[in-house]
């Protein structure tokens, strides 16, 4: 039996890409520690949602969790940088910025008693709607559900004439069926696996924001790992994290194809409407960043983006 058991909780469902990568990491941890460390997975939200998992780590019931931005921002608001709508335009941009911000984010996590094991990436959040969207007014006309949005975020969207609706995740399906919401911001993988796309069959090309995440471990839990294994375990975790960057986009393409085969249509913003869309997007992004992301983090992210785009 293993010397040290690390209990890791995640919302990623059994059998998803994210869960498969974690499973492989568990096998690898056993291998590199010669069986001294067992990584035990609790997937599919059996340990609650992201805020619950953070709470359970603080209580010491779990030592690690693969969290989305939702939970990471509960630990430190800096992670809201990944939620800024229409801020990042490509996965390459995103990972360049992450590389630049990593020391800062790592230090902020450390301060809160957590160790960063690796980055996770769940795909790109897109708009799915009942009526096709080709210009801003199409989106303004539909009630929009947003994952985990709080009051501050909702106010920002409303200021741009949009109709965001915050509901519990369990209400989404019913709300879509009853017309309480008519559009939804989510990833293609979630739209397919949770079957939302049947009710909102129009996918807007060009995403809103990445669905970023990270696997973190409590400092207490990390310090309990055998000394001689720590380096190898960290290296193994980093390696596992690198797979997201290739495997998730592939899975995302397959999900999109599958949904298209079942009646999903893909639209994009009309050329004539692009200028208006872009102006509003840029304004929303900077308002959002200023309101929800600590100043120095937002500034660093902007600098990194400019560097990359140059």
């Amino acid at each position, binding site marked *: 039996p293993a010397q040290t058991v690390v209990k890791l909780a995640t919302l990623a469902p059994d059998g998803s890409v994210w869960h498969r990568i974690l499973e492989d990491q568990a096998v690898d941890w056993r291998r590199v520690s010669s069986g001294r460390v067992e990584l035990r997975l609790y997937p599919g939200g059996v340990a609650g949602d992201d805020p619950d998992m953070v709470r359970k780590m603080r*209580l010491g019931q779990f030592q690690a969790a693969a969290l989305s931005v939702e939970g990471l921002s509960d630990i430190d608001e800096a992670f809201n940088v990944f939620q800024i709508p229409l801020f990042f335009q490509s996965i390459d941009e995103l990972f360049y910025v992450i590389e630049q911000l990593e020391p800062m984010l790592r230090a902020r996590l450390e301060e809160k008693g957590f160790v960063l094991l690796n980055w996770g990436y769940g795909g790109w959040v897109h708009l799915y709607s009942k009526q096709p969207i080709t210009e801003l007014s199409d989106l303004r006309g539909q009630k929009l559900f947003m994952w985990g949005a709080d009051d501050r975020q909702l106010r920002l969207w409303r200021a741009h004439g949009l109709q965001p609706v915050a509901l*519990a995740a369990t209400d989404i399906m019913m709300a879509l069926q009853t017309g309480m919401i008519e559009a939804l911001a989510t990833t293609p993988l979630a739209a397919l696996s949770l079957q939302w796309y049947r009710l909102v069959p129009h996918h807007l090309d060009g995403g809103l924001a990445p669905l970023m995440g990270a696997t973190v471990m409590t400092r207490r839990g990390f310090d309990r790992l055998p000394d001689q294994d720590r380096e190898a375990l960290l290296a193994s975790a980093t390696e596992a994290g690198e797979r997201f960057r290739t495997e998730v986009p592939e899975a995302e393409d397959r999900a999109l194809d599958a949904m298209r085969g079942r009646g999903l249509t893909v639209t994009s913003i009309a050329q004539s409407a692009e200028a208006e869309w872009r102006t509003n997007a840029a304004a929303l992004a900077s308002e959002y960043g200023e309101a929800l992301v600590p100043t120095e983090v937002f500034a660093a992210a902007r600098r990194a983006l400019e560097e990359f785009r140059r």
Partner: protein
Amino acid sequence: MTQPDTEARPAVRRPSRAAAVLGFLHRGEDSLAGVVLVAMVALPLAEMVTRRAFGVGVPGSGPVVQHLTLWIAFLGAALAARERRLLAVATAELLPSGWRRGARIAAGACAAAVSILLGRAALDLVLIERDAGGTFALGIATWIAQAVIPVTFAAIAVRVAWRADDAWPGRAIAGLGIVFGLVLGQFPGLLETRSAWPWLVLVIAATALGMPLFAAIGGAAALLFLIDGVPLAAIPLFTLAGFLLAEGQASQRLLRVFRAFFGSLPGGTAVVVALIFAFFTVFTGGSGVTILALGALAYQALEADGYRSRFSVGLLTGSASLGLLLPPALPLILYGIVAGVSIEDLFIGGFLPGLLLIGLVAGWGMREGRRAGIPRQAFEPREAGKALWSAKWELLLPLVVLVAIFGGFATLVEASAITAGYAFLMQVFVHRDVSVRRDLPRVLTHAAVLLGGVLIILAVAMGLTSYLVDARVPTLALEWVQTRVDSKLAFLLLLNVFLLIVGCLMDIFSATVVVAPLLVPLGLAFDIHPIHLGIIFIANLELGYMTPPVGLNLFLAAYRFDRTLGEVARSVLPILLIMAIGVALITYVPAMTLGLLSLLGR
């Protein structure tokens, strides 16, 4: 020796003044609980109105209501402890009378120990939350909202010790439980390093002697939980609506309608009650909310018709879990999401099985109506019209809820707030059955006591769930099955038993999230259609809710109908058997689920 009774100790020395202070404190406690309940109704309503009128909701309404649910659960539990209304398995009556006093003291001591242990664990949680510095809404610190948990657990510990006996020595012995709990809390190693068996035996023995159930479950898990998840907030609101409706003449008016339309059928009222319960459960998600909201009304209707009390209690307890298989019941939706199968297909697949269970229960009601010679009355159009008109406000209520939900106006929680708000307006202003000053405080307190007793059990049951997950009990059980079972029939049989136990121990939402993902691959391995598996899953849980000794609906019914758990369990046996036949049919005749699907070409 401990002094367990901060509230009542002075009562011995200076009874009159102390009693006045105590009375004042108790009234304050009642008022606080009442205010919390009223706020829970008002906030979602305000949110709906402002959202529609201005496109902007009430800031922080959702999280605030969620935390108010926590408050009403724990304040109510403390009230229930004060009123001796914490739910227990009342086996102490079986003891010789000379033993009962000792049994009560021993059970009180154990309950006090567990309460203080849980309070201690809650305190740790609050302190950690404070260090983390989170806020839940409007900048209010989460730890402040959660501080209600350790405080009320401490109050409950003191109260169960105080209520364990009428004389000082007995109370002092029960109070020793608090000391024991504090010692265990300080040195948790005492528990961890030893075998769990003596502890479990103690918990079971104390439960048999009358220890409250929350302490039994909490003691078995010895682990913390948190009431979380917004749908839970619907329970207090529907309950309050039920309490308001139970005041005054609503039941008589409804009964008149039932009689006018179904009085010509044998068992007419029983059938109608089963239908109404199923209908209501479809919307409430079936965590027993139906019993709380409609139980009293329906019971009065059956009683007035001359049905035996035991039949009525059994019928109502059983009917409360009907309807979970019919669209758009929340468990079906949740299962579809968690298991990754089509929700529409689940809706279609569950349709006939859902009707089958309702039909079986209705048939049983008709049989009872005929056997007991319940008088029938011929259908009279004029009387039917009059009855309808006199009950128009009550009959409008389900319509309002339906329109609110299906018109896309309201979430489940909001719909429950509408129900409570509607019941309030109707009872206070239309029928004038309830006076705001004279009756409302009493109704609110009664609702809070009942809610506290129920929700604290739900809360510790969630703790038990999280313990079972942590110990990987469901995973290991299923692994065991996979290595030892090789026929489909044997697997289905084991599945029935396993899910029955799950239904007893977990609420439907936890059970779905925890167990369903484990079952899906197993179902595929044994060649069971995923939709069929989903329907088996929910039908079995439905049955689990009413299975003694710990089915959730039994607790709720015991509360609502003021019976002991044993009485409810006996009353529910016949209907349990009938529904078990239904569940067996659903399990072993896949065509019932899949026939409609293949007819529709899905």
